[in-house]
């Protein structure tokens, strides 16, 4: 059995897989990677199933040492710095660690999340998924120094870079469908929401990101019942401050949702950093469906292009 030991892990570095859909009715969000495309790319590049459990690395970074190897792994997502021992490696790529070698992943020029795909990572599963719900710690869990990751023995692969798609970049212009509780805001506030720029604050984690920017005062008393929340809901609290809810979001909330981010734009939104500017653009539900299908087709072509070349088992 191959083994990696965690030397250092920043906050919010955790095990994630394809997520845990279907339990929203029990108060359980889907969780899964903040940048879903990036984990899929890393897994396919390694030869894993696309939703296999891997490690989500935050801007807190991660350092590992190979205790028993060799271990071939793949990295994708964001613009991080990656070193094997002291040698810089492609931030998106397949690489092999031999026993005694060290891997360091640190934040680079852009991006908030990168993904480490591993062969047959042994994980704790909750409700059919290894994705960590960080608030409870359920699922595979957050990584901590001294922890040993147990892996399947797999034949090593040569080092190579993974082509980075344009769609992997952070998205400063985010498409939304307005509502469903936009009735709580007057027309001027709704116009401000799409006309003016916001910035991400430091209050950002796997549950959501609080924004700074235009004040969005609810025009009506907040007497709404607690209603379901989605990944991408833009919820405005009574103080007029907007929060975009993300992978580990609470499942219901009694504050109005002024708009909802398209699923196709959430990965790019999650890669923004605190103090980055962001603007919202309202689109119709019909055009949102059209772009979702176009983007899925483009992404499938991208995946086909490099997954075939991997020569992985």
């Amino acid at each position: 059995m191959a083994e990696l030991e965690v030397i250092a892990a920043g906050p919010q570095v955790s095990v994630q897989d394809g997520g845990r859909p279907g339990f929203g009715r029990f108060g359980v969000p889907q969780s899964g990677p903040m940048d879903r495309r990036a984990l899929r790319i890393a897994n396919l590049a390694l030869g894993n199933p696309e939703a296999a459990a891997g490690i989500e690395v935050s801007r807190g970074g991660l350092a590992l040492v190979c205790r028993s190897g060799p271990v071939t792994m793949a990295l994708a997502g964001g613009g991080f710095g990656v070193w094997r021992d002291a040698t810089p490696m492609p931030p998106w790529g397949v690489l092999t660690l031999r026993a005694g070698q060290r891997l360091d992943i640190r934040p680079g020029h852009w991006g908030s999340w990168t993904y480490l795909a591993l062969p047959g990572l042994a994980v704790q599963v909750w409700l059919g998924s290894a994705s960590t719900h960080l608030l409870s710690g359920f699922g595979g869990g957050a990584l901590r120094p001294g922890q040993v990751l147990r892996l399947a023995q797999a034949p090593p692969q040569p080092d190579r870079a993974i082509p980075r798609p344009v769609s992997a970049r952070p998205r400063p212009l985010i498409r939304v469908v307005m509502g469903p509780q936009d009735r709580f805001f007057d027309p001027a506030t709704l116009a401000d929401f799409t006309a003016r720029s916001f910035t991400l604050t430091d209050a950002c984690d796997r549950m959501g990101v609080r924004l700074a920017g235009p004040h969005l005062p609810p025009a009506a008393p907040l007497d709404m019942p607690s209603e379901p929340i989605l990944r991408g809901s833009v919820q405005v609290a009574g103080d007029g401050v907007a929060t975009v809810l993300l992978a580990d979001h609470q499942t219901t909330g009694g504050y109005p949702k002024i708009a909802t981010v398209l699923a196709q734009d959430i990965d790019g939104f999650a890669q923004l950093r605190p103090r980055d500017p962001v603007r919202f653009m309202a689109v119709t539900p019909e055009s949102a469906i059209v772009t979702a299908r176009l983007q899925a087709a483009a992404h499938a072509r991208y995946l086909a292009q490099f997954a075939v070349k991997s020569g992985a088992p």
Partner: protein
Amino acid sequence: MGVFPRIRAVADHAVLAEFGDTPSDAALAGVRHLDASLSRHPLPGGVESVPGFAALLVRFDPLVTDHAAVTLALQQRLQAPVVSAAPGRLHRAAVCHDADMAPDLDAVAEACGLTRGEVVDSHLAADYRVVIYGFAPGYAYLSGVPAALHLPRKPAARRAVPAGSVIIAGAQCLITTLTMPTGWWIIGRSDLRILRDDPNRPFLFDVGDRVQFHRVAALPGDPSVPGR
């Protein structure tokens, strides 16, 4: 405002079927009816449905279907006759009111103009029903808090409230499953485990189940880890 049910498009992968602007028995019945229909006969391309107090969120795969098709399908479901829901099961929850497990009991008594004992008796006497799960894993909102105990949330949340805490706000009561902050009033602690290890039944309550609380002098076992 508008005619209910009202179906709104949400992002590129969901619709929200709204049955009222405020919670009511009629709105909740509408949510239950549509949710039960989708559980029995899932929609093509449907991912999951999540009930709220007055609305049902229906998630779908945009590569398979779209808002218009889902909206039409939901409207057809809503025409169907209502199948009466099965009567829920009854769960009994022990509550301990030791001062360290019920830090807000005195404040609740003062705010309601009752004695500590009257607050406890009033809470225990009521019959509770599981309305929805929400917020966090296993957080089951129970309706049925007596009107004499209805209080708005506290102005400031208390941090790191232990799992198993019995908390109230407005007409709602719940037994927490995680150690988290809460702005609700903490009036006791229970050892009833809502999150279970059983993969066939990971959550103790079903929506519609009944819950009754009874007083115990001490809790058996360690109530601080009801999960896992």
